[in-house]
Structure formats: structure tokens, C-alpha cells
């Protein structure tokens, strides 16, 4: 039976009936970025349904605007730029930035009995996510793309449409603020 998820747990969109068209190979390539898209959208919006919606919409946008992909440009960077822009639009619509943090616990994510160490890891990760959400959107974008997703500062600056120096400055501010919040929490 066809399994849409490969061994690394990544989606292989396009191996279905839709892939018979010319879009199939592109979708398959983009499919490997599904996890990252969900993650970026979630870290920027802090909304589970929003993150799924944004990342799914990113595929539609990507297929519509394939022409904007420049020669030699990384597909991952290009796709994540779409995700970032959609997340910004989503935040603008929902205006949740001012509303503050909505924790995963209230969204009903399953909590299972876990070993204590793992539970502590989860809690720490959760605290960090909440701390991330306290950052201003521009700073958060820089931290999420570079520190969480592992993009280079140049790639992140390109995705956000800002100069390298501005990104590095935002990154520095973000890390400082996070460090402060992190030490407060600890």
C-alpha cells in the first residue's frame, strides 16, 4: 500500500493521482518541506490549526507562483518565504500578536504519561516556545528562521526581505531577550 510518509517521517505529496500532471514532481520536491513549513508557521503564529492551514496554503501559493522561483535559488528558502509571508498575513488577520500566548494545552493536544526526563524536556521546550512568542514578530521571525530552522543569516535576510545587518541585529536582540526570559524561567 502506498505510504505518503517516507522513512524520515516526511510527506511525499504528489505520489497520488494528482501527480500524473506536470505538477507532480514539483509537489514531490516540496513535500519534503512539509514538517518545516508546519514548524515555521506554528512558531510564528503559535496556533496549531493556523499552522496547518498556512502550510497547506503554502503549497497552493507555491504552485501558483512557481514562476517567481529564481534560477539557482534554493527551493527550501523560496518555499519558506511563502510560509513566512502567509504567517504574517494570518497574524495580521487574526491580530493575535497583541492577544498574547495561547498555549498548546488549551488546544487539546494529547498529553500522555511520559518518563520524567522527557516530560521535563517537553516542558522546557514549551517554555521556550512561549518565550519565543513574547518576542516581537520581526525579532521572532529572525530567531525562528536562523536558530530553530537553521537557515543562514543571509538566507533568512533574503526570505524576510531585509538587509543582512538588520537581520543580525534582530537576531542579537532576540537572543538577548530570550536569554533573559529563559534565565527568569529557570
Amino acid at each position, binding site marked *: 500500500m502506498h505510504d505518503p510518509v517516507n522513512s524520515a517521517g516526511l510527506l511525499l505529496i504528489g505520489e497520488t493521482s494528482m501527480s500524473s500532471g506536470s505538477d507532480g514532481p514539483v509537489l514531490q520536491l516540496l513535500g519534503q518541506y512539509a514538517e518545516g513549513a508546519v514548524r515555521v508557521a506554528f*512558531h510564528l503564529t503559535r496556533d496549531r490549526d493556523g499552522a496547518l492551514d498556512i502550510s497547506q496554503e503554502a503549497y497552493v501559493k507555491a504552485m501558483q507562483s512557481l514562476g517567481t522561483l529564481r534560477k539557482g535559488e534554493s527551493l527550501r528558502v523560496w518555499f519558506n518565504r511563502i510560509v513566512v509571508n502567509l504567517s504574517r498575513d494570518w497574524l495580521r488577520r487574526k491580530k493575535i500578536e497583541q492577544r498574547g500566548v495561547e498555549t*498548546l494545552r488549551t*488546544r487539546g493536544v494529547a498529553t500522555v504519561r511520559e518518563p520524567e526526563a522527557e516530560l521535563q*524536556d517537553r516542558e522546557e521546550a514549551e517554555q521556550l516556545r512561549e518565550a519565543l512568542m513574547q518576542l516581537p514578530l520581526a525579532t521572532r521571525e529572525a530567531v525562528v528562521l536562523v536558530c530553530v530552522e537553521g537557515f543562514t543569516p543571509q538566507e533568512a535576510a533574503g526570505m524576510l526581505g531585509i538587509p543582512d545587518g538588520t537581520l543580525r541585529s534582530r537576531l542579537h536582540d532576540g537572543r538577548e531577550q*530570550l*536569554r533573559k526570559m529563559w*534565565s527568569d524561567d529557570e
Partner: protein
Amino acid sequence: MSDSMDKRLRELGEGTPFPVDWRAYEAEVLRRLAVEQQRERRRRWLWAAGSAFCGAAAMFVLMIWTIRTDAKPAEGAAPLMQVNNPSEPPPVHIPTPAGSPNEPVFVRANGKPEGIGAPFTRRIVRKDGRVGEIRFGGFSSADAPEGEISFISIVESGVR
């Protein structure tokens, strides 16, 4: 502390922050793509239909405009209506017989020849505006039942 924070941040970049049903996710992406494709097709169809309609409308307007412009007399041009001298007999319009304009042609009259036996000349105005004369030279045979006539010539005398 900083290292630990960086490590934690990097860990946030692994997997997804919540469980995702990838099958449902993929199905939803494909559904949205299908909807978008359909919308795009409809959009293209509407554009094509709109363009065709606009093109046809433009052609129609252009045609009407051309016809009206052609029909309008030029500034200072002679009036379209023939103004006759009351003393002259009214000009008649006749279909132009085939042949050279100034050569006599034989025509067959449909009526009886009574009353118009004598030769005569009459001014005519063609439908295209040219003026001429029709000269009737008499009947070829006065007894002919259908009034066979001859020596009709149409003489061009220029444009009005």
C-alpha cells in the same frame, strides 16, 4: 546557559510541535490544489468569454461607425437628392444594360408600344450619381406583340 538555550532552540527545529496526521494533511493539500485548478480554469474561461464579447462589441461599434461615416456627405458636396428643373421631364432611373456605356444596345420592352412610337431623348441619373441620356431611336417592328425596340443608346455626360 546560552549553549543550553541554543541547543533547545535547535531541538525545536526537529519534528513538529504537535502530532500531524500526514495522510489527512496530504489529502487536504491535494483538495485545495484541485479547487484552485478548477477556479483557475473558470477564471480563464471567463477571461476568454469576456475578451471575445469585448472584441465582438468593438467590431460592431467600428462597423457602425464606418457605415455612418461613409454615408455622411462631405463638406460642400452636392446634395444627394436630384433637384430637377420643373420645365424638364423628371429623370428616370433605369438598370444599366450590359455593354459599353455609349454603344446602342437592344432591349426588349415588356409593355405595348402604343403611345411611345416616336424617337425621344430623356435625361437619366444613374444610381451611382452619374448623369446621362437615354436615346430611343424607334421600334424595330411596330407590329411586334411584345414591342421589340431598337436603337436605344445610353450616353454618359459626366458626374453631377
